[in-house]
C-alpha cells in the first residue's frame, strides 16, 4: 500500500482551483482564437474579440476569467493500492476549495436550495470518486458555472431512435438554450448507462480537451455530426448570430439496459477552466 496524507490532496485542490479560476485550458484558448478568426464582421466578432481580450487580461492580472467561479466539481480516480491517511477525504477537498476561493478573491456561489442562504465559502464541492487499479490518484478539478449548467438536459430515448435520436437530442438542447448559456458552448454528452450515470459521463466528457475525439469511431462520428449541425443553427457567439455556436462536442459512453438509451447533455460555456493532476 502507498500511503497518501489527505493534506496533499487538499493542497493539490487548492493550487488547481486558484489556477483554474483565472485561466482557461490551452485547448479552449485555441478554440476561441480560431472562432475569432472564422467569424465575419458584426456583433459576434465584437464579442469574440472581447472574450479573447478578457482571458488574456485575466491570466495576466490573476483575476477570475468569469465572475461565476462556479461550483467546484472534483473527480478523483483513486488507485486501490492507496491508503489515505489524515482528515476525511471530503473534508480535505472542501478545505482546499474554501482556501482557494478566499485567497483568489473568487465569488462564493453555493447556497441552500430552499432558503437560498449562501454557505459563504463555496463549499461543499461536488465530489465524484472512482476506485481504479494502481497506487496513484488522478484528480480533475473543474469550476462549473451555472448559466450553462441550467441549460443541461436528460433524454430517456427509445433504443429504436439510435444514433439519429442522439444527435437530434444534442442539437435540440443547444437550439433551445439559444443565447442564454453564453455561446459558443462546449457540449458534454453521456450516452448509455442509467439515468444517473449518463449525467456523470456528460460531465466527465467536458473535461476532455477540445479537439480530441472519442476513441470509438462511431461515437467520434456522433461528435463531429452533432457539432456540424449545432454550428448550422447560426446562434453564434452570445446569440448575436454567426458561424460558431459550439467549440466542441465531447461524448462518453457506457453500456445500458436493453430497454433504454439514456442521453445526458451537459452544457458548458466558452469558459473551460479544467485542471488535472496526478498524485
Amino acid at each position, binding site marked *: 500500500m502507498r500511503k497518501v496524507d489527505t493534506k496533499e490532496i487538499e493542497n493539490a485542490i487548492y493550487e488547481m482551483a486558484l489556477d483554474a479560476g483565472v485561466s482557461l485550458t490551452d485547448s479552449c484558448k485555441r478554440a476561441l482564437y480560431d472562432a475569432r478568426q472564422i467569424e465575419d464582421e458584426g456583433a459576434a466578432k*465584437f464579442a469574440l474579440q472581447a*472574450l479573447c481580450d478578457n482571458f488574456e*487580461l*485575466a491570466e495576466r492580472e490573476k483575476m*477570475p476569467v468569469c465572475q*461565476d467561479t462556479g461550483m467546484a466539481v472534483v473527480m478523483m480516480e483513486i488507485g486501490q493500492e492507496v491508503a489515505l491517511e489524515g482528515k476525511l477525504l471530503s473534508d480535505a477537498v472542501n478545505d482546499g476549495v474554501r482556501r482557494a476561493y478566499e485567497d483568489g478573491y473568487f465569488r462564493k456561489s453555493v447556497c441552500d436550495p430552499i432558503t437560498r442562504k449562501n454557505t459563504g465559502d463555496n463549499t461543499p464541492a461536488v465530489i465524484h470518486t472512482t476506485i481504479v487499479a494502481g497506487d496513484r490518484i488522478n484528480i480533475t478539478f473543474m469550476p462549473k458555472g451555472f*448559466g450553462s449548467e441550467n441549460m443541461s438536459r436528460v433524454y430517456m430515448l427509445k433504443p429504436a431512435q439510435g444514433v439519429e435520436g442522439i444527435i437530434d437530442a444534442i442539437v435540440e438542447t443547444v437550439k433551445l438554450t439559444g443565447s442564454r*448559456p453564453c455561446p459558443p458552448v462546449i457540449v458534454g454528452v453521456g450516452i448509455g448507462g442509467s439515468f444517473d450515470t449518463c449525467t456523470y459521463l456528460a460531465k466527465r466528457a467536458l473535461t476532455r480537451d477540445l479537439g480530441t475525439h472519442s476513441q470509438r469511431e462511431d461515437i467520434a462520428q456522433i461528435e463531429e455530426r452533432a457539432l456540424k449541425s449545432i454550428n448550422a443553427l447560426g446562434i453564434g457567439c452570445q446569440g448575436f*448570430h454567426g458561424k460558431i455556436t459550439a467549440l466542441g462536442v465531447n461524448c462518453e459512453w457506457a453500456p445500458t439496459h436493453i430497454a433504454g438509451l439514456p442521453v445526458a447533455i451537459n452544457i458548458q*460555456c466558452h469558459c473551460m477552466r479544467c485542471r488535472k493532476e496526478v498524485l
Partner: protein
Amino acid sequence: MKILNLPLTSKEIKELHAGDSVLLNGVILTARDCAHKRIAEIMQRGEVLPFELKDAYIYYAGPCPAKPGMASGSCGPTTSARMDSFAPSLLDAGLGGMIGKGEMSMEVRRAIVRNCRVYFAAIGGAGALYAKAIKSSECIAFPDLLSEAVYRLEVENFPAVVAFDCYGNSIYDQK
C-alpha cells in the same frame, strides 16, 4: 461604436437599434435573483425601496470580491431570462433599462416598447474586462445577500450591444 451617458434621454433611446455596439458611462445598479425577489416583495407591500428605481439601470450581475486596489472584482452579466418575471413591473415603475445577457421574454420586450426603454446585452464571460470598466462600487442594499446584494457601480466605457430596442426589435430574432 456609440458612446452613451446614463441615464438616457428619450431622444437618445430612439436613436438606438438592436445590434448597435455601445460603450456605457455612468451609474448602474447590480441586482440578480435574490435581490429581485426582495425588490418584488417590498413593492408588493407598498413600501419604499432602499434606492431610487426611476431611471435606474439594473445590471444582472453578481461580482467577485474586489482585490486590494481595485474597485470591483470580475463582474460580467448573468442570464437575464431568470429575471423575466420581474422586469415588466420594474419597467412600468420607471426603471430606465436593464443590462444582462441572452434573450428575454416577449412580455419584457413589450414592456420595453411600452415604456420607451432599452435592454442591453453585455458580453457574457468577459468578467475581468468588465471589472476594469468599473470605477467605483458601493453596496447600497441587502448586504446579507453577499454577491447577490445591490451594488451601485460607476462605469466607464462599459461595452454592450443593444439587445432590445424601443421599436420591439431584438438582436436575437432570426435573421
